[in-house]
């Protein structure tokens, strides 16, 4: 492993997918050839085609599954963090996005109902899927 990190770019990813698909179509073609050879009674050729087509199918499925897993890993959940502010006077509650400087049990903005200063009672993360 080189110190320079290599990342799989979009171009490489497309090449990888195209190669896997070519292999898949070639394997299907070999199955067809195998069946044709079997119908013609050429059993050894039919068997060879079958073996190669199966190997191609296994390889191409492996590559495509690998890509699917990589896609799943890439779609990681990004948590959104919310702040809950409560008015201890009138019980008003508000949930807003976290702002830098917020912390639990900090006196926050004034209550829109009774103008008393509210209290941050919780700051929590909720997972959101990356768009």
């Amino acid at each position, binding site marked *: *492993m080189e110190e320079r*990190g*290599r*990342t799989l770019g979009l171009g490489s990813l497309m090449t990888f997918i195209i190669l896997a698909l070519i292999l898949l179509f070639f394997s299907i073609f070999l199955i067809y050839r195998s069946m044709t050879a079997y119908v013609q009674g050429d059993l050894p050729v039919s068997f060879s085609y079958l073996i190669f087509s199966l190997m191609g199918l296994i390889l191409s499925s492996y590559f495509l599954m690998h890509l699917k897993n990589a896609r799943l890993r890439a779609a990681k959940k990004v*948590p959104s*963090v919310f702040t809950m502010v409560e008015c201890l006077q009138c019980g008003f509650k508000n949930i807003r996005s*976290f702002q*830098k*400087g*917020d*912390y*639990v*049990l*900090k006196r926050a903005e004034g209550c829109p109902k009774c103008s008393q200063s509210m209290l941050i009672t*919780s*700051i*929590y*993360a*909720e997972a959101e899927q990356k768009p």
Partner: protein
Amino acid sequence: MFAITMLYGQRIQAIIMLRNIDVSLRRLKVLRDNARRALIETIRSFGDSSRDPTPEVDRLLEYFWIQPTNLDPYGIVAKIEHFMNLHDERLRAEVGALAPKADRTQVVNLENLAEVGLALNTIYRIVRHFYLFGKKTMSIFIIYQLEAQLPQIIQEAEAYASGMQAFQLGQPIGDGAGSLVAAKFMYGTEKWVIAKDTVASELSFEGRRLIVLKAEGPGANVGKIGEALTKILEENMGRISLVIMVDAGMKLEGEETGGVSEGIGAAIGGIGVDRFKIEETATKFGVPVYAIIIKESLQDVIAPMKKEIYAGVEEAVNRVRRLIRERTREGESVILVGVGNTIGIGQ
């Protein structure tokens, strides 16, 4: 084909495993680089704009501490504590010098961010070492061992990485669940500093005297809980009926995040210095120590606190109240200890 499999099977297997390790190693490198970048950017925002902190950050990321030898284990806890304090103080001082515009809370948060970067850098370097060593020797046993441990290593690295956002912005993390329980009892009472980065408060709960301890928030502190608890027990000459410790505990696969369990013993993680002190003093005075844990995964511990963990905190508060009612009588004294990193949690 059969001959190739017989002769080169193991080698082919090693190559496939090395390929898998290579993919994971790249992931670790990305995580390490992200942490480094975040640390540089955050330090830059609090530091001298004309000075580039990159060389100092790179030096910090290579920082290490050597654990005392255990050839003669007598007195090793004090030695570990001494060197740990030295490590923390030096890291804090270095970060403080790099970010002169940061206040105390921000310096502590930066120190934790540096710790995350340091941990990720160490993980990356160790995995890379064994990967290159395995590749050089083509030893199947070295490669096997590394590949077998990789899922856990990646999980640990991702746990550290998920904590970066929290340490940058000062958001509460899963580890702070115990601290939050204590903070809920402490709110509105008078607090005093009882040990370094640790606060205490005293209140009355249904006729009982309740002393509450937690790390000082909202900075990323874990405090000196062992020292603080020992001090209170000694000041009260052991006239404490019950100690309740609340901490975040590791959940097993299949268990729910935020679930609460009760038990006996000193619920405190870390290298063991605090646990040793608490066990020592509690045994000396014969004080019962009860533990309540709020379950969460390794990733949840350092990531921003999840909503489910908040539900666990509420449940733990109710369990503390029940334990005090059931296990003590009016007029008795109880100590409640909220253990964990108190980032984003005041008191």
